[in-house]
């Protein structure tokens, strides 16, 4: 487990970067994972086709919050083209920890909110699960 809940993950969870209101935000999107109640709002200020600033607000598990926090660091200053190619693999690499199938939705919630903010899209290149992966949904 120390594999997964490493110091930097817990640090991002407890001290998330780039949080709070984003004055002058040009794009904002709120997304939730209703299965666990995780919520993330991503706000972007896009200037000249670049992410001039990014902030998020959220609550939820360590994985979703750390993942979103790391993602904001990753996208700041990037062009929209560079942002577009961020895929699930990149998120996993950013996290640098093993993500079990049940936790994939947690890890990707920030990306989903980001893409919603940037494009208002509900699908995002590279966000889809690869064939063969089982999706998670909620029952007992």
């Amino acid at each position, binding site marked *: 487990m120390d594999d997964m809940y490493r110091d930097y993950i817990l640090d991002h969870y407890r001290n998330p970067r780039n949080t709070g209101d984003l004055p002058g935000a040009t794009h904002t999107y709120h997304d939730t994972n*209703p299965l666990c109640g995780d919520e993330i709002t991503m706000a972007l200020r896009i200037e000249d086709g670049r992410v001039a600033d990014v902030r998020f607000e959220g609550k939820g598990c360590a994985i979703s919050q750390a993942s979103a926090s790391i993602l904001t660091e990753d996208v700041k200053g990037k062009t929209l083209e560079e942002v577009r190619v961020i895929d699930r693999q990149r998120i996993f690499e950013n996290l640098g920890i093993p993500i*079990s*199938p*049940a936790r994939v939705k947690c890890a990707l919630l920030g990306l989903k909110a980001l893409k919603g903010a940037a494009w208002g899209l509900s699908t995002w290149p590279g966000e889809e699960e690869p064939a*063969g992966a*089982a*999706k*998670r*949904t*909620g029952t007992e």
Partner: protein
Amino acid sequence: MAVVSARSTLPIDVTRIRADFPVLSRTVHGKPLVYLDNAATSQKPRQVIDATREVFEEYNANIHRGVYEFSERTTAAFEGAREKVARLLNAAATREVIFVRNATEGVNLVAYAWGREHIRSGDLIVSTVLEHHSNFVPWQQLARDVGAQIAVIDVDDEGRLRRDQYAAAMKRGPRLVAITYTSNGLGTVLPAKELVAEAKAAGATVLVDGAQAVPHQKVDVRDLGADFLVFSGHKMLAPPGSGAVWGRAELLERMRPFLFGGDMISRVTVERTEWNELPWKFEAGTSSYVDAIGLGAAVDYLETVGLDAIHEHELRLTGYLLDRMREIPGLTIYGPKTLEDRVGVVSFNIDGIHPHDVATIFDAQGVCVRAGHHCNQLLMAKLGVPATTRASFYLYNTTAECDALVGAIHAAKKVFRI
């Protein structure tokens, strides 16, 4: 009467296949089992039995949302089964496959969730005299409730659909066409693709009952062109409790769910509920996930043998049996006279012996067949008989079993001193 192995000229290796089915080596009343009731349900290979037992013994947990390894494994096996079914049918997307208990629930799902929304007073539903009750009664009841009409297309003397009547019905602008692919009562294979094309051209939504087709031949939903297809797993080597509705995603997306409860929701408040995504929107409560995993194993098995080979094998058996039965005086054989439009099912009557007596005498010989109306009372009325005796094949049947059936017919005549 020993069941001898199939000759090498047959398209599949029946001896090897039979070894996979434990029940096929059992005896009935001291005679080797000759199981010819496959249109009712199929037997199961060890691969399917083991796949279901493995879940229980190795990693069982409830699917979806479980944040632990066993639940992830069970979920992966369940969703993997869905992908196998989607591939088998060549569905455009895995989420077009909804697991249900059986073909019957599938038709009802469409009748409630699509039909009650779209079929209005005065609308026309087109059905056929070949339909199993499961693809007729839901539409009859819907029609009754909303004041729609049902046109029941007839068959000719050999049990082929009256294309003239069908074409005429299409001119009346039906809202829904609900037809079977293969008749369970006669073995007639309908020209489903053509019928679907005519119905689509007429603006109808089309449901195809694939209960007797999907187990026995390659069915490609994209090629078929229908809107919905239903089938049952238990007729294709899988456990009862498995089955699917395939539906076009655009339609399924717009449909309101049928059963409400856990797993099919995304958010519930006192005032309102938001639905889950496809396909889970239509799968309320804990699915029969072990049955579905069994269906996945059954699909693997069928694809390994090859559905074209299975179809060819059944054609040969059907031809062989029809030839042998035509030698016997005093038999009435129903359905098409040629193999062109029929496969896998031979319905008949022995003059002077009621089908129930036939089946009882056959049973004493180890020969299992159905006797009755086969949930085809409209067809029985058309044939003018209350019941028939029906033999139906699957991949593990042999010509020796056809011979056993012929022997049983002679035995029945002897018992009845005919």
